């Protein structure tokens, strides 16, 4: 399968989920982690990540803070806030509903 670009809404959800499982991460780390999680089927130009991080931060779902990386480099780390957790839960539910509906449309009907 070709490496697929990710569209923005989905990317935001991936960011939130990744932060939930991994804890605080910087932008580059987030991009790498998302690629890994997708089994390298996705490619994330992490430039596209910044506007999304900014939006999530403005909405209060994540919080950015400057800190030190493992190899002693200054980097901005993002962590999930409480409202971010709630938002993630509700967005996950919506995503599941949507895929379930699409699934019913696209899979061959069993009753037929």
């Amino acid at each position, binding site marked *: 399968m070709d490496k697929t670009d990710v569209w923005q809404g989905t990317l935001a959800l991936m960011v939130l989920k990744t932060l939930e499982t991994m804890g605080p991460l910087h932008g*580059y780390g987030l991009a790498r982690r998302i690629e890994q999680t997708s089994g390298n089927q996705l490619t994330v130009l992490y430039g596209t990540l910044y506007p999304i991080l900014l939006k999530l931060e403005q909405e209060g779902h994540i919080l950015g803070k400057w800190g030190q990386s493992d*190899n002693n480099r200054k980097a901005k780390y993002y962590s999930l806030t409480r409202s971010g957790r709630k938002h993630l839960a509700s967005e996950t539910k919506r995503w599941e509903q949507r895929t379930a509906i699409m699934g019913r449309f696209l899979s061959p009907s069993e009753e037929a």
Partner: protein
Amino acid sequence: MSTIRALLSRLAGVFNQAAKDRELQEEIDSNLQLHIEDCLRSGMTPEEARRHALVKLGGLVSVRESCRDRRSIPWLESGIRDLRHSLRMLRRSPGFTLIALLLLALGIGANTAIFTLLDRLMLRPLPVKDPDQLVMIWTTGPHLGSNQGSRSSSYPMYQDFEEGAEAFSYVFCRHFTPLSVSWEGQAERVMGELVSGNYFSALGLGAAVGRVFSSEEDDRVYKGHPAVVLSHQYWVARFAADPAVVGKEILVNSYPMVVVGVSAAGFTGVDPARSPQIRVPIQMKPLMTPGSDNLGNRRNQWIQIFARLKPGFTRESALGSLEALLSQTLEREITEPALRDIPRSLRERFLARKVRMESAASGYSHLQGTSQRTMFATLMAMVGLVLLIACFNVASLLIARAAARQKEVAVRLAIGASRGQLTRQLLIESMVLSLTGAGLGLVLSAGLLWALLGFLPTNGMLLTVSPLPDWRIFAFTVGLALLTGLIFGLAPAWQSVRVDLSSALKSEGAITGGAGSARLRRGLVTAQVAFSFLLLAGAGLFVKTLRNLEQTDPGFHDIEHLVTFQIDPARNGYSKPRVKNFCSLLQDNIKSLPYVKSVGYAWIPVLTGREADWDMVIEGRARSERDDTQVWINCVSPDYWETMGLGLIDGRDFDRRDYGDHFRVAIVNRECARDFFGNRNPVGLHIGFDTDPGATPDIEIVGVVENALNEGPREGVRRQVFLPFSQSSFPYAASFYVRTSAPPGPMYSALRGKVRELDNALPVYEMKTLRSQLAETLGAERLTATLSTAFGGLATLIAAVGLYGVLALVITRRTREIGLRIALGARRTTILSMVLTDAFGMLGLGLGFGVPCAYLLTRYVSTLLFGVTPIDAWTAAIAAAILAAATILAGVLPARRAGAIDPMQALRHD
């Protein structure tokens, strides 16, 4: 929630873009380094690592851009940039900015001031529950009795409406009357309001402390409710907001009454102009107006009726139900003894009386009569025109500026600004000007209002109109400013972005604008002249009206040396005989003062707009003989005529013999004698009044006196009948008149002293000369005349400046041509007349529009005029002459400059 949060953070982002940009750059850099280190670790060369990292990052510029847009609100940000640019441009030409701001501040400030007056007096809804449901009810047509105040009804009429009208959830009534309040030994005169028991429930208002009136507790027993509700303001001012005053006893007109509560803060009453200090149940009327008990009298109109419509009823449907009620009431009234014998035609007119209803959402005051409304509407229109003239002038200035800025605009267009962006920026500049002007205007208007309020007639009460702006006034001013900015900004902005790029960029030096902009400016000046003419012509009519009113012969002699003051002994507990004795004694005591020539007193003060009118019956004549038997009444003392300077034509003056409880003698004025008795001498004939039903005409006419004004010059000379104060059955208040031979000013304290000698606790009020009384009565007329003159003058000044600007511009543009003409031998006077001809051309065109407009519009103010017709050739001629003089003044300077052009220089000048 999170959307709002994001919006707020973006709004904040508008202001710290640079810092945020830097932070983003740091974040990107640090992430890039992290990536490069990873790549190095996986074995790439530094070069490869760096390239790989940059590729994975994506386009750096577009990342920055989209972050920047995301971080703030792009349109707001560019708006702020335009704003900054505008401020810079305005600062750079302080002369223009100052003049424009001055014009706008004057125009907008004057508009705000007049609007504030209009809004506070008649537009703003009352601060009560559902004001839209409130209506005022009154009747028109012959009332065949006495009437006090505008839109008044009798109390029994109110009761009929209250009981019978199904369209209303409440019908309530009120009446203003001065009262004397005494608390801890200190007496003072306050304004009181007598109200029906349901007054507060009808308005949906509660008490701040204690309770307010209710129908059950305060409107059942005649004279049986000695209760007082204080207004919040009075409670704070007089009782220091002490809640303990509730339950205490105070003396009202020397009668003990209990303070039951304080009405809600902020509520002043249904009269937006004047508010009472205390309220008393209407059943207490006989005690509040000693000597006058008219609660049960159908022939006395004195209360104002208001009502609250039931949901589901409109004013039209409610009016229908009232009409049926009124005709029942009238049918009943006509059978009463007083009306039994009236002439048939009068009877028909009486039965055809109409009930009228109007929304009272904004309440009703004495300043809401038809003529006052016309006055305010006229002033608003005039002040609007002044602002329009100011607008046109600023527009004209902007066009000149646009011409000077053509190069800047051309450069900005050339380097890629769109015309839309430029227009927006120029409009923002206009808005900055108009909003700043409005801010200054708001300050100006508060000052102007202080002055204006002093002009308004108060009818003996303090006006309670605040000159301070609130959010309504603020919104009006801002709205007006935006509209103004658009009016004067749009055309110049549109003009200036229409530049021809190549020619504008090529040309050198100052540019004076194209032919199009000159034509536009000429049009604007012509309009200014036309509007100025309208304002001047209007001002002329109002000034002439005021002069006519002031110069009307009052009949009274030398009113500068006639001092008047009022006392109200009955309200301080005096019995009827004591009032009469007191007044008579006071008259004698004042007469003993030095410089006092004579003293008299009357029941109703003259030239104050107040009046009492009754229907007269004449001995030996059938009532059906004539329709109109209305005469104007006053009760006067002996020596009143001598004091007022009116001669007796026939018969005798009242004297000490005329004493008692019933009127036995009368003096009529010349007009009354002429109208009722023609050539016959009325002395010795007997008359009577309809207010005494069934009484035989037993009042003997003992004298005829010269004519004089009664309410004021506008009402003119009335048919008057004078009765002796000493025979009155209602001698409650008296207006004294003192003729002095010395300047009146120093007399005042001596007169007060004489009253104090007799009774230290009796308040003396309204002390002034009759001349200043007349001036006060003409307050509204003086306000109109003064303001319209000021508006006219201001408009003319602005228009002259505009004219000057255009002429100067034309000269600058035609310098070469004029130089050539002079070189070819044209005389300087020819040049001079050329410029003046141009100026007079614009004047003529302006008048060409202005005169017909004035002709069409002045008729709408005819009700405000006195002794002058709306179309007055002289007034128009003077207005035109003033404008011509202004034109010459505006034209002379540029004309002289044109004449002084040196042909050598002009021809070299490119």
